[in-house]
């Protein structure tokens, strides 16, 4: 017990010295994590917001079935997605010739596939929850379908943004998939989460705690933004 407590205290001290001395490895980890999560979720948003809002506004055959599928995919276990992408991108797999396994591209692909359903689902829910009276007013003012879509998106922008932050939060704290498809390669595919796992298993608590502190900070900021957005929504 004594030795472990000492470890943790030493770890916290080391954490602060790493953070404030701009340790290059620490900053590389920060850069890789944010780059992978940000780009994959932004592209996911560009695909998911139009599709999600489209699903909310139009009625089409099989809408209920597709909605069910969408909801299921929102809860897709990230580590299973990692396994799936790994099998697809492996040199023995169908898309191995790209050679993207153990690169940030593979990590972005799996996070994109995880984030798109989430953003699609939250966007759809946001638009569906707009006051039907508002919808009627806009239509009665002579708006065509595209203008209606734009107005409703603008009206629900807080909820849509909240959905995006949920996806980003999931992406940045995800550990299974990025470890499997990224390989935790030093300087190249090491993120907050994979580094924490690896450092902890080695018993090197200093860097692990530093990364943990940063990750908690990011989670707090995201949560704060989410709460602020949700309070603003009528």
């Amino acid at each position, binding site marked *: 017990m004594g030795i472990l407590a000492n470890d943790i205290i030493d770890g916290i001290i080391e954490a602060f010295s790493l953070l404030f001395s701009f340790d290059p490895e620490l900053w590389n980890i920060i850069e890789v994590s944010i780059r992978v999560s940000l*780009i994959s979720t932004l592209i996911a948003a560009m695909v998911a917001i139009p599709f999600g809002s489209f699903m909310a506004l139009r009625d089409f055959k099989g809408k209920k079935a597709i909605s069910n599928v969408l909801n299921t995919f929102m809860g897709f276990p990230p580590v299973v997605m990692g396994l799936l992408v790994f099998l697809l991108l492996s*040199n*023995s797999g169908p898309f*191995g010739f790209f*050679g993207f396994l*153990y*690169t940030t591209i593979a990590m972005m692909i799996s996070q994109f596939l995880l984030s798109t359903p989430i953003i699609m689902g939250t966007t759809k829910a946001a638009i569906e929850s707009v006051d039907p009276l508002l919808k009627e007013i806009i239509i009665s003012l002579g708006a065509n379908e595209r203008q209606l879509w734009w107005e409703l998106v603008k009206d629900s922008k807080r909820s849509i943004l909240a959905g995006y932050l949920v996806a980003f939060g999931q992406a940045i704290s995800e550990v299974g998939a990025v470890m499997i498809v990224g390989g*935790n390669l030093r300087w190249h595919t090491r993120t907050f989460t994979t580094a924490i796992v690896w450092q902890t298993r*080695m*018993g090197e608590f200093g860097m692990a705690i530093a990364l943990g502190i940063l990750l908690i900070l990011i989670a707090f900021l995201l949560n704060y933004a989410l709460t602020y957005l949700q309070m603003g929504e009528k």
Partner: protein
Amino acid sequence: MSEKEIKDEMRELGIKRIWNTKQKKAIIALVIIATAGIVGGFLIVEYNRVQNRIILATTTSTYDSGLLDILVPVWEGQTGFTVEILSVGTGAALRNGESGDADVLLVHSRSREDDFIAAGYGLYRTCVMYNDFILIGPASDPADLLNAINITDAMTRIKDESELGNANFTSRGDASGTHLKELLLWSLVEGFVPDPAVNTWYDEAGEGMGATLTIANQQNSYTLIDRGTWLANKDDVSLILVYEANDSIDIDKNLLNPYGAMLVNPLIHQGIKYEKAMSFVAFLVSEQGQKLIGEFKKEGELLFTPCFGKCNETHDCTTTEDEVEFWSQHNGGHIRTTSGPSLASADYPLYGTVSI
């Protein structure tokens, strides 16, 4: 009204800027192009990086020893390529070789390496170096290993004392090279095979060496550990070294841990960086590489013994003439000739002079 006056009046009324349709379309187009540009940029950068790298799959204990941090930059500096290191268990490293996701392997499990080559997944296995395993345990040393006369005696003492309830043992339990070595050492005690279900004093951690050490420390148990990981962590645990190999005793050679490097067979996968991988292994067994290995110190102690061409010193690793001859051709870390397996041949010889 002029445009400026219109804007002023809009500002007065509190109306925000309205984009007209043409501007909106331009903005959307710009966003799409920018995104495509950024994504395309990343794809190109990553693709370039993939072309210039080899993936070395090795074991966690090898990576954690820090040796590769010394060796790899030297080769990278000489050739301009990069080595990206997958640090996983022996089983996972071999599987990465089987699926062609790694270009070169460095593991320490001779029998599994031989199986790998025999199955055609790898080529040109060669001995690189060896280090040793040691037994560590509680400072009180209930099984009195400090007085053990050889490794068989040591393992017997642990078993006997544990069955009396005075000691326990933590195993890697993860089918790693270390785990297999541990099972081999148990078999020296009249073929004993530990079973956590039956032997309550025996725990399987299912983790890497660092994590297993942490567990053993907390449970105050005996465990088998490679010297490298021990040197790195011994100040952080309360366990002590209780048995190490005695050079003059033959049976203690079982504690030696030889490392083999293997190239992944490029004929059964696409995209294997065969020549770069061969250059890397050639560097490892070259005079310079072997010297760097032999001089590597951890916490002030030498850790590895380079053994290219002389692995017969260890118990379960034999060097062959073919091996020495082949790699001597490629000495210096640079490829002079790339002799490799023939596309037409159905079997893949360990060594040979078949040309492509």
